[in-house]
């Protein structure tokens, strides 16, 4: 009995500390070249899930603008550069910075910030055209960002 309680208490503490360890969008620290050194969740990303986030319209929708040969998605766009070999060009912290908010790396870029909750001009509620709720979530949550970064780290050509 005692033992069970102890385990349960430990699980609760663990869950709580994991939640605390997650960096909120407002608190992300960028280096002066736009990189984000620390994982947003303290948990490793899952590259397979990241691939899905990148290819799914309602999630990252990276293929709207980027060609990524590793992804099985039709009609990949070309507003951004191809991501093949991205991990040869950038390290993990830089890739995390680009996914969180690429404007710190590329001034004025059209690439949307995936982990940002404001300020925005006339933010909407998804694609409904209606006003956003007060607690507008970022496009991707912290773990999805880490998953996409893990996926990008698999894009090596050299």
């Amino acid at each position, binding site marked *: 009995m005692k033992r069970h309680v102890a385990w349960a208490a430990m699980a609760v503490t663990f869950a709580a500390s994991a939640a605390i360890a997650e960096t909120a969008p407002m608190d992300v620290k960028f280096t002066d070249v736009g990189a984000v050194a620390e994982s947003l969740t303290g948990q490793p990303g899952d590259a397979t899930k990241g691939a899905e986030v990148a290819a799914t319209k309602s999630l990252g929708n990276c293929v709207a603008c980027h060609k990524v040969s590793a992804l099985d998605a039709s009609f990949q*766009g*070309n507003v951004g550069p191809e991501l093949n070999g991205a991990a040869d060009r950038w390290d993990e912290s830089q890739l995390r910075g680009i996914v969180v908010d690429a404007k710190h790396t*590329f001034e004025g870029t059209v690439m949307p910030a995936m982990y940002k909750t404001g300020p925005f001009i006339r933010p909407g509620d998804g694609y409904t055209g*209606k006003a956003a709720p007060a607690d507008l979530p970022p496009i991707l949550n912290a773990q999805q960002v880490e998953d996409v970064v893990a996926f990008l780290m698999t894009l090596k050509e050299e």
Partner: protein
Amino acid sequence: MTLRTSRTILAATAAFALSTAALHAEMADDELVINGDTPITVKAPAADHLEGHLDEVYSGWLFRTDETRAMEQDDFDNPIMIFAEQGQETWSTADGSEGKSCADCHGDISEGMKGVRASMPKVNEAGKLWSMEDYINDCRTNRMGAEAWGWDSTPMHNMTTAIAVESRGMPVSVKIDGDAQPFWEKGKEMYYTRYGQLELSCASCHEENYGNYIRADHLSQGQIQGFPVYRLKNAGVVSIHNRFKGCIRDTRAETYSPGSDEFRNLELYVASRGLGLDIEGGGVRP
């Protein structure tokens, strides 16, 4: 800091090479002649006010597939002509408490409405910027004693299309100086405002990236001289303001309503980006 600058420049040159290559490869090298007898200018040097932004302006028609382009070349194949014919019929049909039709005041549509579409939107006598829809509703309510039509109602689509056909092949002629200038300035500011959670402006897609693809969508310059257009996707007519509404919504923004002052201002500015091009009088788009 050095890293950031060099990366940005690198990426910028890469993007530039991509977009020019895409343009040459992807934009149709084609001329629009409707019914074999009405040539339409679909490519022109940009107006002076676009210096530093665009060198040439292009109709959205050039960015469409061979099949879609062909539909606009011949009125028998252009689905919007059915709407135009209905508008022409309404033109001479009396309505409202005064028992008058448009024709009673304006004569034949081909004379009374010639060139009107090309000059819209324009400032009215009271100093307000009005779109074609506003002028139509003003006649209906104040001169005919009839009810106003909804901005995106079928009779409004029919009438704006019928009137647009009468400006076919005429150059865009919107006035942007004098009393129009304050509206134009506001529209310009909107055009470059990065709206919504995606933080994209009209320019992000239609100035920086025309010729490129966003997923399956081939980005044009977002010109409006082809409007109203028939959209195959909706199987219906789309007004200028309705298109604006959709584009702003797609930035994950709270959009504006068709018929809002904001969209009138934006319409004037976007129309002025098409100076040099000709009115198509009922385009066809995917």
